[in-house]
C-alpha cells in the first residue's frame, strides 16, 4: 500500500502541488532481548537505505550489512543504542518482553517508533559527556543515549505502558557531521 501526502504547496504560478509517496509503516515485533537485536538492526538498516538510496559497496551482495552512508550510519547507530537500552533497562536482560517496531520511510526522512512494556526509563539520569576529554575523563559508560540523541534530528520518549521511543532522521542537503572515510 502506498500512502500519498502533500510535501509542498506553492502559490507561485506554474508551481504544482507536489505529492510524494510515503510508504506504509514496516511493522516488526521481536522479543526484547539482545539475541534478537541483529534482526532488528538489519531491518532498520535496509529501511534507512530506502530513504538514503545509498549504494552498496558490492551491489551483487544484497545480504551483507553495509552501513557506510552518513544517513544510514546515523539511523543504525541511534537505533542500536535505543534497542540496547530497552533490553537492558526496560526488560532488565530478562526474557518474556516484546519490542514493537514501526518503521516509516518517507521521501526524505525515516521515523522509527519502539514500544515496550518494561520499566520506564528516566532520561534525566543521563549525564552529559565531560566537556574536556582526556585520558582520565574518558567515559566507560553512559554514552548510548548521547549517541542516539546526537545522531538524530528528533528523539522523544514517553513513559508508558507502553513506553514509546520515537526516533526521526531527515536527509540533509548539508554533509552530515559524521566520519565518513578512512582515518
Amino acid at each position, binding site marked *: 500500500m502506498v500512502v500519498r501526502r502533500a510535501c509542498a504547496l506553492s502559490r507561485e504560478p506554474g508551481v504544482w502541488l507536489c505529492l510524494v509517496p510515503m510508504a506504509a509503516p514496516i511493522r516488526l515485533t521481536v522479543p526484547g532481548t539482545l539475541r534478537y537485536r541483529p534482526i532488528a538492526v538489519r531491518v532498520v538498516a535496509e529501511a534507512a537505505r530506502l530513504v538514503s538510496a545509498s549504494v552498496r559497496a558490492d551491489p551483487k551482495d544484497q545480504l551483507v*550489512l553495509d*552501513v557506510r552512508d552518513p544517513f544510514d550510519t546515523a539511523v543504525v547507530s541511534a537505533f542500536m543504542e535505543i534497542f*540496547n537500552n530497552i533490553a537492558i533497562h526496560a526488560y532488565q536482560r530478562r526474557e518474556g518482553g516484546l519490542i514493537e517496531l514501526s518503521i516509516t520511510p518517507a521521501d526524505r526522512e525515516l521515523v522509527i517508533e519502539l514500544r515496550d512494556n518494561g520499566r520506564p526509563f528516566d532520561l534525566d539520569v543521563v549525564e552529559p559527556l565531560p566537556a574536556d576529554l582526556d585520558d582520565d575523563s*574518558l567515559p*566507560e559508560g553512559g554514552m*548510548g543515549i548521547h549517541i542516539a540523541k546526537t545522531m538524530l534530528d528528533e528523539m522523544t520518549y514517553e513513559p508508558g505502558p507502553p513506553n514509546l521511543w520515537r526516533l526521526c532522521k531527515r536527509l540533509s542537503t548539508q554533509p552530515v557531521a*559524521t*566520519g*565518513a572515510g578512512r*582515518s
Partner: protein
Amino acid sequence: MSNSFDVQRTNNETRLTLRGSLDINSAPVLSEEIDRIIAAKPPKVVVDLAPLDLIDSSGVAALVKLYKGIRNASAEITMVGARDQPLAIFKLLRMDKVFNL
C-alpha cells in the same frame, strides 16, 4: 553480522584486530581478552580498526577500558584504520582526538 577479533603477540608489540561488529553482544567476550592483554603488560599495543564495520557504546567502552589499562601501565597504545560508522562514533564522542584517529 560477524563478530571476531584476533590477537598477535610479538616481543615488542601486541596487535589486536577487530572485525565485523563490536557491540553489546560481542563486547563482553572482547573484554575478557582485554583483561588478558592488560595483565600481560605489553610495551606496545596496536588496535587495528580497519576491518571493523560497526560499533556501539558497549564496544566503545571496551576500547576505553583497554586504552586506560595500557596507559595506566605506562605503555603505548595506538589505534589505526578507523573508518565509516566506527569513526563517526568516535568523532561524535570526541574520542578521535584522544585516540589520535
